[in-house]
């Protein structure tokens, strides 16, 4: 892990000079701002039962679907397309260091972007002067959920990028995987396909892997270690597959 920090600072620098980062950031903040505005509008019209933070995090999936692919599509696909992966891997760095460096850089950027939405809540608190709007429970829970689920989403993006040398393909693949994880599993849980007794174990697994349920638990302030484990193990698996993906492409290049 000697070169990890060299690679990480290089990757962060590269993300900060890349146009796609700023496009992703602008789109993200514009969309989240719009959602926040709509929430405030509905709150100003009629009293609501839940805090604005709870509603805000309900829409986490939409920015994730376009932002994560934009942040991660470049990382390995671009290296392979330009051939710089060859110069990179002929220095004393390991594939693991390369993949982890890229993953960490993308994840930190993801956190920073989400972190900047905290400004919305600050503005609300400042100008409404009402402490009730800033319910610390759902807010902390919500951001914790974003941080934990982001681990897995960004790892999926890195994995998608390791599979193709075309950025567009990587981005679409990443969006599809995240869509499958979030909506596919929730649809599967609601369908009757898993009703037969034989499929009960599968149903149990699918019920655990409900991203929406996790979000609701987190925003209610419940931090379940099983859910943490789900995201952590998923992340580790996706990263291992990314490393294998890069190495397999070398063997068959």
């Amino acid at each position: 892990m000697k070169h990890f920090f060299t690679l990480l600072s290089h990757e962060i620098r590269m993300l900060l000079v890349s146009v796609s980062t700023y496009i992703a950031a602008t789109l993200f903040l514009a969309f989240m701002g719009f959602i926040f505005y709509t929430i405030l509008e509905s709150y100003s019209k009629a009293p609501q039962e839940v805090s604005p933070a709870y509603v805000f995090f309900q829409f986490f999936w939409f920015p994730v679907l376009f932002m994560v692919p934009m942040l991660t599509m470049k990382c390995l696909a671009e290296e392979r397309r330009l051939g710089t992966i060859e110069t990179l891997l002929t220095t004393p760095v390991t594939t693991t260091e390369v993949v982890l460096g890229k993953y960490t850089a993308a994840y930190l950027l993801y956190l920073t972007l989400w972190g900047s939405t905290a400004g919305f809540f600050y503005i609300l608190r400042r100008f409404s002067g009402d402490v009730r709007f800033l319910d610390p429970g759902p807010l902390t829970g919500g951001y914790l959920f974003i941080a934990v689920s982001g681990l897995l989403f960004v790892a999926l993006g890195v994995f998608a990028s390791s599979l193709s040398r075309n950025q567009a393909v990587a981005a679409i693949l990443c969006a599809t995987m995240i869509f499958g994880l979030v909506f596919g599993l929730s649809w599967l849980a609601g369908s009757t396909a898993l009703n037969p007794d034989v499929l009960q174990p599968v149903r149990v697994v699918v019920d655990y892997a409900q991203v929406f349920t996790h979000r609701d638990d987190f925003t209610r302030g419940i931090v379940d270690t099983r859910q943490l484990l789900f995201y952590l193990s998923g992340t580790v698996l996706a990263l291992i597959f990314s490393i294998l993906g890069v190495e397999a492409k070398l063997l068959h290049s």
Partner: protein
Amino acid sequence: MPDTPAIEVTRLVKSYAGVTAVNDISFRVARGEILGFLGPNGAGKSTTMRVLTGYLPATSGSVRICGVPVASQPDEVKRHIGYMPENNPLPEDMRVSEYLYFRGRLKELRRRMLGPRIDEVLELCDLKRVRHKIIGQLSKGYRQRVGIAEAVLAEPPVIIMDEPTIGLDPHQILIVRDLISSLRGRMTVIISSHILPEIEVTCDRVLIINQGRVVAQGTPADLRREILGRTSYQVELAGDLAALPVLLATVEPTLQVGAQGEPDAEGFRKLTLTTERDADLGEALLRALALPGYRLRALSRTNPTLEDVFLAATRRSWDAKSPELPKK
């Protein structure tokens, strides 16, 4: 271990999905030697180089760099080499000095040493003027030199460059050639190239490979003698050609008339004479052809270039291989 060869390749085989790119290659390169790697497209040059760097695993055979086996200690080997791949891939959106700094850190140069070393390398490769430019905006010649600067940055004992002079203008080729020559004795260099005179001037030894096999190796002079095996003379002559072979036999028994050109307006033809003798027959030929009935306008001994050697060697290996080739 000063006496271990810098590079030792033994019976190297590399095949991809049923295609054998490198087939049983063995060679050694001594320390401080510059080896030229020649071969037509698809001969296995780049593949061999990639195996040497540890980027690709070999199918069978062994490669040692400075005595360290590539297969079992790839990380150690990577500390001993500077590698410039084919087409010289560089990141588009970094500045030259930033890129060299990043690469230096990856190659485990100490931070304190890195600044002066980067200045040194920029000076060596004549890149000082563009050090703050973005690589994506540099011309081909500059990019190529950035690649070379990167390869020599950590002062590795072995430098491997895949076609370092491709796409450069003659002036830049001269700079690169001088640069490579200046490494002679200090570092072992392997370069591959299509530009044969380049190799001839720069390299101590040449290795010609074709279809994944070594077809010839040695110094350029050795190769000429070994592959072509004869000297040839170019004459421009007018006169009776039928009597010529008899006349030539009196000069030197092995002298033969090779290719003949068409006579021009004044009756002169271009003839190629070949002989197996190494000694210079120029004077004897001039005397013999000064006889009445012949008019001689020009006589020169042709020096076979490495190009001829290369063509002869690769053709020879094509000929040797072609009967075995499966018909598709």
